[in-house]
């Protein structure tokens, strides 16, 4: 692996289409290329329907079935970093314009023929419509709304006349009426948030490195036809000795998106996300001794006046006040931010939580259900 370090990585885009990009990445490690692939598939935020409240469903499909299908519908998610908050970071209780998008579907069949209910029937409720969210006015409006593009949250393909996604078929007299809430997330949580529908990744088209074994009946080359990427590399000569030190250095990618993000945005966001991960790790390594002292000297961010009982012991590791505790979350139990910040409210059973009547769940403010279900779904299906 050594000796390659002086070479800079290069990239060549072979084809760029509306929803896919094909490129060749050279002079990088296998591990590096694979991380790029992984991060594009699993770590880029998009929006997808996360909660469905079904009012009328007289179709032949059960509610869960429809809710799951709705979750898979790709929604326009351009500039997702700035245009929408995570509900867990939002100041609202269950959902607001800054962290959620409401979509409505109301279709009834009155004809003598089967009717398709498709993704084109989903209508976005424009942000700011009164009565959209159950608890209005308890959230701090951010500048998220102004950062949203035109197609943000709309089902992909609704505006350009491409064929819609079938959700259900209904016959005469059947009715489907429901309310969806779309939220931001990443594909590590659920694959519906992946911006990629397929990422092809290939190296060593001639199998010179013997990372795989080709099973064959009589003729290996005849039974394993070469792919198009083989034209980019030199074919092995007959009887060439096996180079056991060789490392793969050229990778052929084809990133195909589901339309929620463009291919360019997926690639660029992926690289940025990897850098963020590394930068956070550096920060974590550096802050081992110093940051604990910093936080103990900085009482304003956590609602306690006596911070020295907590953060005092330098590098000891007991300090519960990491850098993440800054944003008004923390243990300040009676503040309304506590109930809103956590959709789950797992750790809030501590005696420090004096707010609200219920001792479990989301600090009393979130749910009247006593045991506080981890997700604040009223009746809906958690797809």
């Amino acid at each position, binding site marked *: *692996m*050594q000796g*390659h*370090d002086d070479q800079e*990585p*290069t*990239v060549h*885009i072979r*084809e*760029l*289409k*509306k929803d896919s990009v094909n490129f060749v*990445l050279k002079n*990088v*490690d*296998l*591990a*590096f290329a*694979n*991380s790029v692939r*992984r991060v594009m598939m699993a*770590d880029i935020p998009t929006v997808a329907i996360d909660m469905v409240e079904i009012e009328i469903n007289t179709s032949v499909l059960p509610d869960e079935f429809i809710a799951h299908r709705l979750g898979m519908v790709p929604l326009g998610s351009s500039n997702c970093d700035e245009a929408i908050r995570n509900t*867990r970071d939002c100041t609202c209780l269950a959902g607001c314009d800054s962290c959620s998008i409401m979509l409505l579907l109301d279709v009834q069949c009155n*004809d*003598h023929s*089967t009717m*398709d209910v498709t993704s084109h029937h989903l209508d976005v409720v424009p942000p700011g419509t009164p009565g959209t969210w159950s608890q209005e006015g308890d959230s701090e409006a951010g500048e998220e709304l102004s950062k949203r593009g035109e197609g943000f949250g709309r089902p992909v393909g609704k505006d350009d*006349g*491409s*064929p819609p996604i*079938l959700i259900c*078929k209904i016959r*005469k*007299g059947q009715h489907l009426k429901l309310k969806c809430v779309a939220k931001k997330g*990443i594909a*590590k*949580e659920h694959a519906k948030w992946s911006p990629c529908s397929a990422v092809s990744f290939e190296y060593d088209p001639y199998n010179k490195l013997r990372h795989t074994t080709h099973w064959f009946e009589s003729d290996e080359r005849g039974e394993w036809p070469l792919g198009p990427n083989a034209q980019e590399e030199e074919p092995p000569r007959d009887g060439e000795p096996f180079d056991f030190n060789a490392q793969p250095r050229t990778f052929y990618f084809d990133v195909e998106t589901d339309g929620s993000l463009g291919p*360019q945005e997926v*690639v*660029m966001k992926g*690289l*940025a996300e*990897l*850098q963020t991960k*590394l*930068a*956070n*790790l*550096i920060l*974590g*390594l550096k802050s081992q001794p110093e940051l604990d002292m910093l936080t103990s000297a900085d009482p304003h961010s956590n609602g306690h006046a006596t911070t020295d009982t907590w953060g005092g012991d330098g590098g000891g590791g007991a*300090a*519960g*006040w*990491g850098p*993440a505790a800054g944003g008004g979350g923390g243990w300040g139990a009676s503040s309304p931010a506590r109930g809103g910040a956590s*959709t789950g409210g*797992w750790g809030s059973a501590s005696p420090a939580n004096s707010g609200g009547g219920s001792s479990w769940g989301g600090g009393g403010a979130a749910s009247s259900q006593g*045991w506080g279900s*981890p997700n604040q779904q009223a009746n809906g299906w958690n797809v």
Partner: protein
Amino acid sequence: MNAPNRYELYVLEDGEKPVEITEDTKIPNAATIKIVKQDHTLGNMLRAQLLSMPQILFAGYKVPHPLHPYFIIKIQTDGTVTPQEVLEQACTKLIGTLASLEAKFKREFSFKDVEGAVGGVGSNMAHEDPYGGAGGGAWSGGRDYLDF
């Protein structure tokens, strides 16, 4: 009901430390570093970068259990730098590589934009029924048991 929030797979909890360093007591210049809320994406990349650095004697990582969202990376150096420092150097180097790659991607994409390669997809088939003629299933008109 009792399931932990799914985002706990990748979001640090309040006050949770992103890294935890344990120095090895038996092997010189070695440390085991636990990196929380990260997975193979970061682990394998770091391992490969560390192995390409001359000061490293050993570097390896593992995700001990697929349901536990952390990985551990073991590093042994030749003594000129501590494992912690060398990991930091590896991160910085990777960020540099990624930044230069990002610039190259930006250049390549801007060329493609000029060429106007971004074409419409599927516009020619917009008028066909994508589900194979669902409209053909009209019932034989007349009375229906729903028409009361």
